[in-house]
């Protein structure tokens, strides 16, 4: 039980996929314009990650080593298609906002990375909690980045204006703002880490 909790919590801070492992950044940067988009993307990616981790850990003994990557990709792509179609059906607005970045979860290095580095070596329970923790860490990172960007870029959070008279810095709603935010955040976390040691 203790190890399961450890598998779950490590993805949130110690091995955070975005800030520590620096994986799967394409969607992180592209959709983090608003918090709502960030949450949507986080949930979709967590779903895919969880599903593929579970399936990979279940059938890991049947997959021949040499073609394991294509197998993982097919499994991941299946879950992505499920996510894509449900999003189209239940939340067309979100689907339009996330655009091509939903099918692109297939090639999100974080998902494939967890299959290759963790799920193919561990049992079902650990893989499940690893996937859940990583997905949660990814979602939290997305929320952090998108909260910064939405607040600075439009003066709002989840669509509510926070400070009256604040002149939004449009740049943070743009691609360049995303790169600047992630760069400065990574630098800031490094700075904290260096302080500690």
């Amino acid at each position, binding site marked *: 039980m203790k190890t399961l909790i450890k598998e779950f919590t490590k993805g949130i801070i110690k091995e955070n996929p975005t800030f520590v492992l620096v994986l799967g950044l394409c969607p992180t940067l592209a959709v983090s314009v608003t918090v709502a988009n960030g949450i949507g993307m986080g949930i979709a990616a967590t779903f895919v990650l969880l599903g593929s981790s579970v399936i990979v850990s279940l059938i890991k003994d049947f997959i021949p080593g040499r073609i394991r990557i294509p197998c993982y990709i097919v499994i991941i792509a299946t879950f*992505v298609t499920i996510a894509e179609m449900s999003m189209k059906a239940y939340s067309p607005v979100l689907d339009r906002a996330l655009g091509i970045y939903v099918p692109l979860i*297939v*090639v999100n290095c974080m998902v494939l990375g967890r299959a290759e580095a963790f799920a193919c070596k561990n049992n079902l329970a650990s893989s499940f909690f690893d996937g859940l923790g990583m997905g949660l860490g990814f979602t939290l990172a997305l929320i952090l980045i998108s909260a910064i960007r939405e607040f600075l870029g439009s003066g709002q959070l989840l669509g509510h204006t926070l400070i009256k008279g604040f002149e939004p810095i449009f740049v943070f709603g743009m*691609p360049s703002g995303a*790169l*600047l935010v992630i760069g400065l955040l990574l630098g800031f976390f*490094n700075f904290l880490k260096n302080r500690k040691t």
Partner: protein
Amino acid sequence: MNLQEFLTIFISAVFIYNVILSRFLGLCSFIAISKETKPALAMSFAVMFVITMSSIITWFVYRFMLLPFNLTYLRTISFILVIATFVQLVEMVIRKFSPQMYRAFGIYLPLITVNCAVLGVAVLNIDMFFVSGKQVAGSFYYSLFQGICVGLGYTLAMLLMSGIRERLELCNVPKALKDFPLAFIIGGILSLSFMGFSGFKF
């Protein structure tokens, strides 16, 4: 289909919606391999080739297999499989015929399969040049051309970045910002300066 359309595709794919700096596709390889010019260049050529070829292949797959049989929901799976197979094939061919070339960018080829730029362009082509299940006139040429231009944009960003990062090796950069963080900040500034090309009209 006219020249203006092609020019617009060129400017927007290379500068305004640069794959890396604006669409964030292939960002991982961009950050990881742009430390030196030579591997960056090799990677760029490999990506350019694969993107161009996969634009062609996925167009055929979509036009002649998925559309007629009403299987468009299989787009993601079929595209990623086709791309992975193609990359594998290229790797085998290169290894067989030119070991030298294989050593130059062989190690980057498997990475390209999971390079979001390749799948991204394939999906983008479909989104842009197939309107509600029907192809736009000349969609094949547009797809092909967009594939080439996206590859060019990737190469441009890669070259600029690797040049800059090579020079940064000599700089006294604050410790916390070394490598990744600074690479992102530079990317941000590049992206800001590419905005100068927005709103092009011919």
